[in-house]
């Protein structure tokens, strides 16, 4: 633990150090008045900075009287803020339910989601408080204030952008393990990220985000036929049969194995219950679909083969009029410009498999948001700070200094490029071949001037 030479040497070294420390200030036996301590030392004020300041308690937060249900819930939230206990969570949940009763369910779909998300946060708190962000009680309080504003508002459309949307996104990010843009995915799903030819199933009950379906489809960046043919009854039956097959597979291959796993793992009782409930609901759904199909039910209907899908789409023009081309990993690729969230030589180059967005900050106090664009800007700064984007491909070589981050929905990928991308206009004559595997990174191949360019698109998961 210490170098050799114990004993005398060490002791004399100690003595010497102590003498050196103190000797300059007082010679043995010599009366030397201390400069400031003389006389009235006890009255000497202590260094002011050393005395901890007592802060006055925070100002009361709500001055305006709240309706009774809201006041009760707010009080429950205060208790929760103080202590996460089963009793406090239960009070909050019942308080939330009381408020929900006062709501007209038709007022706005988004309001329903606020309730669902708040309930989910409370649920997560009761199951695994460690998984909930520490700001969750505050977020719940914001939810409450939004609900109050909605209850008092005459015209909801005014609130939607300024209050409801931000609240929803905050609530979503406070729910552990739920994709951030949950509703958007639901809304986007019918447009089909997989270029299959079957018509969309009856749209899921529309959630809040129905304002700009066209824009969403467009920035989904996928082949959206100019007009989706209205589903003929025969086609519908076919589609429902396919849906049933997928549903059965999903229950059998995904949900039941997980259920079995949770059943075996202590501490996962709650998740097990959630899965059992999910499976039961899906099975009920399946039964009612079968009943509705009646004679048209054909078990085991396979989805149309991929080749057929490709054949169907092969003649289509390239879905994007503009693309950003670059060379990546030795091949020619193209990105969808709307999906590019960042492209520049970043302040910090790393060869980690994940690129932390905090590396994009300029200086210690800098922010990330000025550096990025597109959909990623919808995330707040604290979320951005925590984001680590997976880097596709091997660690960057010495020439690969340009970082391109492409994002769509809740999915982001980073690419190291040797040179910044170039925007090109895709001529209508260019030949476009969609990719066969819908899950791959590539949406398809573009043949342009004798060159084959692989188009990379990000699909939200």
């Amino acid at each position, binding site marked *: 633990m210490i170098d050799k030479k114990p004993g005398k040497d060490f002791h004399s070294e100690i003595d010497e150090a102590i003498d050196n420390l103190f000797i300059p200030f007082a010679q043995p036996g010599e009366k030397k008045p201390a400069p400031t301590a003389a006389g009235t030392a006890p009255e000497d004020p202590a260094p002011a*900075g*050393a005395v*901890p300041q007592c*802060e*006055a*308690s*925070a100002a009361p937060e709500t001055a305006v009287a709240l309706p009774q249900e809201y006041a009760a819930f707010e009080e429950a939230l205060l208790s*929760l*803020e*103080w*202590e*996460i206990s089963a009793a*406090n969570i239960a009070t909050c949940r019942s308080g939330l339910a009381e408020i929900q009763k006062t709501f007209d369910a038709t007022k706005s779909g988004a309001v329903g989601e606020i309730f669902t998300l708040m309930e989910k946060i409370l649920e997560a708190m009761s199951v695994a*408080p*460690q998984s*909930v*962000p*520490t*700001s*969750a*009680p*505050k977020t719940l309080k914001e939810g409450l204030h939004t609900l109050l504003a909605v209850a008092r508002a005459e015209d909801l459309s005014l609130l939607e952008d300024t209050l409801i949307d931000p609240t929803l996104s905050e609530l979503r990010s406070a729910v552990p393990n739920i994709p951030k843009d949950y509703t958007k995915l639901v809304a986007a799903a019918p447009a089909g990220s997989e270029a299959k030819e079957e018509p969309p199933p009856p749209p899921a009950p529309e959630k809040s985000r129905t304002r700009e379906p066209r824009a969403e489809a467009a920035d989904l960046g996928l082949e959206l036929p100019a007009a989706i043919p209205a589903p003929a009854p025969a086609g519908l039956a076919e589609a429902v049969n396919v849906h049933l097959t997928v549903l059965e597979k999903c229950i059998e291959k995904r949900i039941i194995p997980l259920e079995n796993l949770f059943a075996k793992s202590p501490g996962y009782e709650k998740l097990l219950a959630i899965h059992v409930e999910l499976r039961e609901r899906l099975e009920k759904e399946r039964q009612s679909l079968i009943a509705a199909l009646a004679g048209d039910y054909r078990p085991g209907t396979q989805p149309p083969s991929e080749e057929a899908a490709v054949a169907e789409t092969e003649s289509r023009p390239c879905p994007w009029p503009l693309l950003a081309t670059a060379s990546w990993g030795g091949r020619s690729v193209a990105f969808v410009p709307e999906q590019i969230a960042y492209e520049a030589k970043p302040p910090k180059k790393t060869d980690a498999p994940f690129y932390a967005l905090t590396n994009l900050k300029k200086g210690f106090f800098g922010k990330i948001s000025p550096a990025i664009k597109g959909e990623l800007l919808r995330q707040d700064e604290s979320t951005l700070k925590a984001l680590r984007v997976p880097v596709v491909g091997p660690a960057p070589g010495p020439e690969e200094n340009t970082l391109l981050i492409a994002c769509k929905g809740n999915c982001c990928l980073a690419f190291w490029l040797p040179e910044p991308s170039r925007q090109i206009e895709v001529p209508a004559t260019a030949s476009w071949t969609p990719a066969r595997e819908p899950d791959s990174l590539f949406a398809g191949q573009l043949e342009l001037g004798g060159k084959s360019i692989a188009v990379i698109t990000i699909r939200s998961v």
Partner: protein
Amino acid sequence: MQDFILTAEILDKARTAIESSLIQAGVRTALLIDGAGNILSNCGQDSQEIDAISLAALAAANLGATSQIAKLIGEEDFSLLFHKGKNGNIHFGRIGEELILITIFGEEVSLGLVRCRVAELTNTILQIFEG
């Protein structure tokens, strides 16, 4: 009272546990000290700015004083020691007989959840120190 012989390994483990549990959850500073006011670990964004030596000495004394207050009203010790400020809050937690964990956090962080995490971390740190 036992003398502490701290190894770098124990301190590293404790620091990692504190960082992953508290600092990543948005806590500004976490100080692990002993009952005599010595600093064992100092983590977080403000850790270099605050006068940790004074803070540790005062915190140790504060806990000692509060536990005396507890005894005066017939309690063994208080389970919650927390001071609330306008922008900053401080929470003190005992870890076993000898250690104290001081947590400093802002307005956006909920005390309840800090307490949850501190409770969990307490067990982890005890295990680290007891080997």
